[in-house]
């Protein structure tokens, strides 16, 4: 059986370079298996974050041949045969060492999401219909691998946008909350003014790389954009609100967390 030739990015915050490893090919292996064999044989100091090896923990996100992929879910035999495989850390985040990146940007964005805010608990408890429960289930599949954040050019190619852009992973969280029948908050102005929803130009890369096949753009980002249009850009919707005396929450009001 032939060899696998792999170019793995080795380095840290001070810089780095590709190093070539040649490992005998084995049937049924995924890229993470090869990385582990490199660690076991040639480079015991090669840093790589991993956990479940089943595509469910989202730890082993990296870039294989330039595309964000889970190392544990990418079979070697699905990559072009006879070609060198390049493995690099996620491009959008600062590298810690080798294939390990600092994804704390995402945790900061997660903390900015105003929490679920239900009405006072009625007698007998909260009730939801199955169709309303099902609507948000797709978004709950997210394993937080952050590959959608990594591939999104808004922050991948423009570091300066990180302070004003939540990213696809958190747009699905905002969408889930906005579509929740028991949530009383209104985050539409917040996502427009402070979370940078308008910066998304719906090129659907987040959907393409999602290992859970969540239709991020079609089912979360575009519905959110349409809700923002309802709130801010549609004169008929504005008139309807005035007639029915409905108000919307400003970004500042939406950020106030319930007691």
């Amino acid at each position, binding site marked *: 059986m032939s060899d696998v030739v792999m170019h793995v990015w080795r380095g840290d915050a001070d810089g780095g370079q590709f190093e070539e490893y040649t490992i005998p090919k084995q049937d049924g292996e995924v890229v993470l298996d090869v990385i582990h064999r490199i660690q076991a044989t040639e480079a015991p100091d090669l840093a790589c974050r991993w956990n479940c090896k089943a595509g469910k923990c989202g730890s082993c996100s990296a870039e294989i041949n*330039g595309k964000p992929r889970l190392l544990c879910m990418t079979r070697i035999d699905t990559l072009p045969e006879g070609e060198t495989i390049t493995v690099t850390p996620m491009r959008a985040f600062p590298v810690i060492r080798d294939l390990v990146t600092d994804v704390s940007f995402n945790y900061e964005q997660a903390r900015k999401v105003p929490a679920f805010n239900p009405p006072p608990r009625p007698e007998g408890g909260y009730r939801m*219909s199955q169709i309303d429960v099902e609507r948000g289930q797709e978004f709950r599949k997210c394993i937080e691998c952050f590959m959608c954040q990594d591939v999104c*050019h808004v922050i991948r190619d423009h570091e300066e946008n990180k302070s004003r852009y939540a990213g696809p992973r958190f747009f699905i969280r905002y969408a889930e909350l906005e579509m929740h029948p028991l949530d009383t908050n209104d985050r539409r102005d917040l996502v427009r003014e402070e979370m940078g929803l308008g910066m998304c*130009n719906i090129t659907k890369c987040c959907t393409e790389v999602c290992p859970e096949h969540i239709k991020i753009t*079609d089912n979360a980002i575009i519905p959110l954009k349409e*809700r923002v249009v309802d709130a801010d850009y549609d004169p008929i919707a504005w008139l309807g609100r005035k007639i029915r005396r409905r108000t919307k929450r400003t970004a500042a009001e939406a950020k*106030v*967390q319930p*007691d």
Partner: protein
Amino acid sequence: MTTVENPATRVDNSHTPVVLGGTRGGPDVPTLRKDRWWLAPVITVTILTSFVGYATWAAFVNKNYFAGSWMHRDLISPFYSPCLAASCVPGASHSPVISFWTISPALLILIFPLGFRMTCYYYRRAYYRSFWWAPPACSVSDSHKSYSGESKFPLLIQNVHRYFFYFGLVFNVILTYDAVLAFNQPGIGVGVTVGTLVLCLNACLLWLYSLSCHACRHLCGGQVKSFSAHPIRHKFWKMLTPLNAKHMQFAWVSLFVVALTDMYVRLVASGTITDFRLF
């Protein structure tokens, strides 16, 4: 008793701000992709440029857009329907005319279907990638020094999409009416010609393209917070969701067919080909 704070309801403004900068891993190259990522943008540019070129020519040429009773047909090009100008050829106009308009009547109406497609979420994806290179393909660097997307003027105008959708529905009704009229062959009677089928196909595809639109899905039911409280809107939303998943395909096919329909009517009206009567 110790009070345990619920982290979900915590008011916390003390967290550290997002750390910007840091060294990114990997080499500083636009992409490490080895596949033919450039192929899709090239195909998109080729098709859209060809369509815009053809549509511009067809809109300005101002002739051969209607095959009327002198040919025992009632076929009108979708680029010229509704024909609202006084200069429309006799029989092409079924509506009040605008008398001061002397140039091509297509120029009166094309802004609406054009605006609908220009602001369509699918076409936005297509031309942002292929013309604007933002980005040309996934994990390929975009070619801009700074980027604000659709958050500022002029791209903020994309939010007008739902209004073009409403106008698009009006055009669909008119083009469906044209397709029904195409069953009538003046001087012969009711029948079906190849032109009838072409106009029907065009109308069907335009309906599919419009109904699969993301704005339509939102307005019909997606905007509600609780489906159980709005069962009819939920039904609409459920019907439109599978169509919405095929929006890209409908966008391309309807674009081809609308150009094909114009071309067919043009060829028939100019006498280049005969519109074959099937029955």
